[in-house]
């Protein structure tokens, strides 16, 4: 009989949840969304969504997780099955395993790129310190990620990219194998402060850039901030702005991801979760608004503006971020150091997230299939290796990565969040949910939050889901969802079809495991013990 895992400290669990939430999107997605949707005015719907959607959903997930943990379950299938005593519930819980595992397949690859770029800045690689050369940096990135053809990273021996993927893979599994407290918690306790220090260093550098090119006096740091923050109040009248703000809050807090419910299940029954949940969310907001909102756009404004003609020539592929950033650092005084700090910070943001993707599945393999620590980690390693190998091999145009990202990392998240909101508000019930939240609470949660969770949050999520399904996107004719469906049907999109099969195959595999886990739990009498 294995001893039940627990967090070592409350600060540890807060750091781990915050580490899971803080990711690349805080620095690269948020500023773009804000600038596109009304600048400073975007912050009004953003904060409304934080209060009505983000924080209430976090509280709901923490409550359900700790509730399930008290009943002896750490994985979402188990937690769902004690909240809703119906055979289907644990299969719904499998979504909370599919999302982190599916996202891990490709996220680890992006994480390795960040580490690889940090390494190249550390050693002063000419590939990234070659002056203003957008086309060169783009070409370097495409070669580095093997976008030229499928299997490019395996041609001509082991590439540096593969080495960094192996390193990040090994580091992730080493930390997960060390356990919740000894691995993930200890690492996050160090990584989050280091990440903050790196980000503050880059922030100070950006804010002290002044006007780098005296010939372009308008391209200075104050106007860069203006580009990010100048309000356009008319944007508030557009539903798309409110939807974008809700989407940003939703993704940034990692709600509906299957992680919080697992992490919260390890919190001791009498410990606070109300304050911990809002603290983890506020740390994430600090990284997003105070750091992400102050660094990326001002820096890009100052420098990319200066090279407009050449940057335009780079094109609009998804790789532009990795191609554009080196230009910014190449023109920035001390660019090598700040380039290293930036990509190392992104690597830390990524690894604290990827660790949280492995833990829910690891927990399920242990409690669902009865595997010991070594066997569970080995099985998880095997499954995730296959998925990642697929993404790494089918690297042409990053098609496999992009497809899995949409279905597992975006669409399924909205579905799971909706399931969880209904599970909390209508199955567990707001009365039991509030009692769980108030148990040991060091922060009084207002009563109206329960009303919000029961009615407002599900409605908000249905609106987001409808936006995905029906709101025009891309060519302005079809929705994002149907655009993807149409893409799959095209005869030359073989990799996209296989990528979807990988996601579906993973889901079926998880359902089979859940079936055996359910039988095991029944045989052990775990549910009948709950009735006693």
């Amino acid at each position, binding site marked *: 009989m294995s001893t039940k895992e627990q967090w070592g*400290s409350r*600060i540890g669990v*807060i750091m781990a949840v915050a580490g899971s939430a803080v990711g*690349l*999107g805080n620095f*690269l*997605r948020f500023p*773009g969304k804000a*600038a*596109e949707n009304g*600048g*400073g005015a975007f*912050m009004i719907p953003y*904060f409304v969504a934080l209060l009505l959607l983000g924080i209430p959903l976090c509280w709901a997930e923490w409550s359900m997780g700790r509730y399930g943990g008290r009943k002896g379950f750490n994985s979402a299938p188990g937690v769902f099955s004690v909240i809703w005593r119906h055979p289907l519930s644990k299969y719904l819980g499998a979504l909370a395993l599919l999302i982190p595992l599916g996202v891990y397949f490709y996220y680890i690859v*992006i994480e390795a790129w960040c580490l690889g770029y940090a390494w190249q800045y550390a050693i002063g690689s000419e590939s990234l310190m070659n002056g203003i050369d957008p086309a060169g940096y783009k070409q370097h990135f495409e070669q580095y990620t093997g976008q030229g053809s499928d299997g490019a990273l395996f041609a001509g021996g082991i590439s540096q990219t593969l080495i960094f993927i192996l390193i990040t893979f090994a580091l992730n599994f080493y930390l997960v194998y060390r356990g919740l407290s000894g691995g993930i918690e200890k690492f996050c306790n160090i990584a989050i402060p280091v990440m903050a220090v790196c980000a503050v260093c880059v922030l100070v550098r950006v804010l002290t850039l002044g006007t780098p090119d005296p010939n372009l006096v*308008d*391209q200075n740091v104050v*106007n860069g*901030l*203006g*580009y*990010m*923050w*100048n*309000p356009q109040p008319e944007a508030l009248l557009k539903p798309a702005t409110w939807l974008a703000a809700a989407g940003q809050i939703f*993704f940034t807090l990692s709600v509906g991801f299957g992680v919080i419910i697992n992490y919260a299940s390890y919190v001791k029954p009498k410990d*606070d979760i109300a*304050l911990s949940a*809002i*603290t983890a969310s*506020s*740390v994430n*907001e*600090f990284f997003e*608004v*105070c750091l992400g909102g102050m660094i*990326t*756009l001002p820096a*890009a*404004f100052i420098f*990319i*503006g200066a090279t407009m003609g050449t940057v*335009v020539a780079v094109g*609009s592929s*998804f*790789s*532009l*971020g*990795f191609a*554009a950033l080196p230009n910014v650092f190449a023109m920035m005084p001390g660019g090598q150091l700040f380039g290293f700090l930036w990509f190392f910070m992104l690597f830390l943001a990524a690894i604290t997230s990827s660790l949280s993707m492995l833990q829910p599945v690891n927990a399920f393999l242990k409690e669902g299939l009865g595997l010991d620590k070594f066997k569970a980690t080995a099985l998880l390693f095997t499954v995730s290796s296959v998925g990642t190998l697929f993404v790494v091999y089918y690297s042409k145009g990053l098609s496999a990565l*992009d497809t899995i*990202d*949409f279905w597992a*990392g*975006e669409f399924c998240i909205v579905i799971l969040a909706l399931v969880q909101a209904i599970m909390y508000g209508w199955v567990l019930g707001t009365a039991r949910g509030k009692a769980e939240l108030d148990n040991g609470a*060091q922060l009084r949660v207002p009563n109206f939050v329960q009303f919000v969770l029961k009615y407002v949050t599900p409605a908000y999520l249905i609106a987001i889901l409808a936006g995905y399904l029906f709101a025009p*996107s*891309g060519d*302005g004719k079809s929705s994002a969802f149907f*655009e993807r469906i149409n893409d799959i049907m095209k005869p030359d999109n073989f990799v996209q079809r296989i990528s979807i099969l990988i996601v579906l195959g993973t889901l079926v595999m998880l359902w089979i495991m859940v079936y055996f886990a359910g039988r095991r739990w029944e045989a052990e009498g775990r549910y009948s013990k709950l009735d006693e």
Partner: protein
Amino acid sequence: MGGRRPIFKVGRVRELTATFEFVRVNNLGLCKGNKMTTGGWIFMTLSISSVLLLVIYTVGKVLLTANKQ
């Protein structure tokens, strides 16, 4: 100018670079000058200070109550 074409495609990974895409396609406007306005200062200050207050309050409360757990 004409209508602005959609910039943000679906897919979180693709959006990692959308910030730069956004700057790029709007660059003509930026180069003409985009002065920080009073409204910009107000929204920036209010947003950052409210998040900072939230962080200070919550993290401070966690640290102060750490021994009670």
